[in-house]
């Protein structure tokens, strides 16, 4: 099992309340996913060549005591990079105006246990082990702002309970995916992608789906075409919810083995594995509530 939530606010004024509206959704999925939780949030993108990395220090020897400001000093000293950093516990968003590959290579060489959660201009990503309430508290999810987000609560079945195997997964820039279900062909996808130079961080089945779809997008497919190829190549059970800087997208496997329900009002589109996670939303009693059909694509624009 696992729980999925997604929220897209249609009115700019509601962007300030994105986290506040979402936290009860995430906590509502605790029974479906008590071992880890995470979310990816999209906000106004950085301008020009600005890039940001979401970083996780929980796997380093120093854990939450990681010397984040030492890191920015070292980046200045070694790479002449002026980086800003926003720190929350064992998590930081590092932003700069150079090639993210150069920074990631340096991080990998100098801090190999520092986990890069995501790269991009618009997306911040958080994930850790613990109950959804604990993870939400750890990172102050209540105060998160932005236009849309995807969240996940995990009950692991296909790989170990570790922070890097929690969801969302990400690949490339500003793309993320959460998954409820299990794939039966992640290894053959891996064998197809790895010779194309695509690197995997974990042995998790969801990562294979995430990297497959991001590879299709990078090869020039639009989101709908990439998802259609996903239906053809991905075998197993899945409800996938994906985020890009301007879209949320949802698909379910042809057998609809994993649940999803959507509530839409003039103010928001809210997606969850079950209605339990939508019941608290303002105006939900008069919302248009429906169950997404299997093997259909649902795409909402931010």
């Amino acid at each position, binding site marked *: 099992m696992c729980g999925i939530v997604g929220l897209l606010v249609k009115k700019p004024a509601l962007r300030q309340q994105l986290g506040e509206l979402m936290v009860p959704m995430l906590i509502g999925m605790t029974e479906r996913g008590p071992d880890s939780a995470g979310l990816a949030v999209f906000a106004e993108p950085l301008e020009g060549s600005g890039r940001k990395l979401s970083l996780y220090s929980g796997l380093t020897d120093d854990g939450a005591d990681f010397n984040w400001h030492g890191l920015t000093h070292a980046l200045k000293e070694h790479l002449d990079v002026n980086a800003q950093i926003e720190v929350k516990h064992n998590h930081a968003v590092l932003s700069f105006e150079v090639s993210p590959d150069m920074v990631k290579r340096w991080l990998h060489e100098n801090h190999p246990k520092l986990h890069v959660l995501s790269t991009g201009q618009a997306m911040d990503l958080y994930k850790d082990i613990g109950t959804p309430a604990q993870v939400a508290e750890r990172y102050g999810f209540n105060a998160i702002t932005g236009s849309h987000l995807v969240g996940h609560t995990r009950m692991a079945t296909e790989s170990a309970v570790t922070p890097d195997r929690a969801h969302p997964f990400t690949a490339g820039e500003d793309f993320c995916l959460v998954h409820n279900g299990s794939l039966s062909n992640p290894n053959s996808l891996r064998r197809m992608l790895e010779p194309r130079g695509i690197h995997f961080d974990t042995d998790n089945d969801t990562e294979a789906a995430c990297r497959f779809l991001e590879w299709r997008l990078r090869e020039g497919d639009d989101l709908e075409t990439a998802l259609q190829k996903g239906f053809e190549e991905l075998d197993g059970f899945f409800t996938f919810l994906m985020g890009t800087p301007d879209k949320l997208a949802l698909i379910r496997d*042809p*057998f*609809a083995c994993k*649940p999803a*329900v959507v509530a839409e009002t003039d103010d928001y589109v809210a997606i969850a594995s*079950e*209605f*339990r*996670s*939508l*019941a*608290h939303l303002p105006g939900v*009693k008069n919302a248009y*509530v*429906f*169950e997404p*059909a*299997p093997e259909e694509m649902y795409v909402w624009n931010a």
Partner: protein
Amino acid sequence: MERIEAERITAERMSFDLTKTPLRDVNQFLHRNLKDGDDRHIEVQNPDGAHSIAVGLNHPVTVEIHGHAGYYAAGMNKHATVVVHGSVGTGVAENMMSGKVHVKGFASNGAGATAHGGLLVIDGDAGLRCGISLKGGDIVVGGSVGSFSAFMAQAGRMVICGNAGDALGDSLYEAVIYIRGEPKSLGADARFEPMTDDDYKTVGDLLKQAGMDHDPKSFKRIASARSLYHWNADANQEY
């Protein structure tokens, strides 16, 4: 059970608010505090998608759920009438023995699975595997049903006012399906058959009980060709 918080509206009418009273207390009240011959009317407010509301009832009580219910609503129902003014999750009225369950919205997967008796009415659409392994209950769906509905259905009737997904009635036994629209595909061993006068009467009766107004003449009958009843070694896995 004195501690239960409920609002008594009239002698025979009570209301429970699930934001104030734990669901377990409500279900225990429905199981233990209703005596034979009682004909009470119970309202449930703010279901908020909770699982297993009004499961295992065994009395001719009427339960009205105001809002969206979660998984297994009115599961294993016997004698009771359960009305959901909203949608339901997976497995509504699963293994129902008798009584009536009426969903005013849509139902997710596995609606009415293995029902032995009673009537399940869904005003909206039903998800996949509706009426899977039906064992004698009746199901009327106002909208469409998803793929693999009535899979291995053994007895009972299913009336579908809309369309059906893939593999409708796959491996059917003696249950009969009536459909007004079209199935995307029929399952193995399911076939269209001519409607008889008895079929028109059956559809008319079930539509009337469901409160739906369609002409029975607009329905088609699907039943088992019974070619899977006996193992055929020469079939070469082609059915």
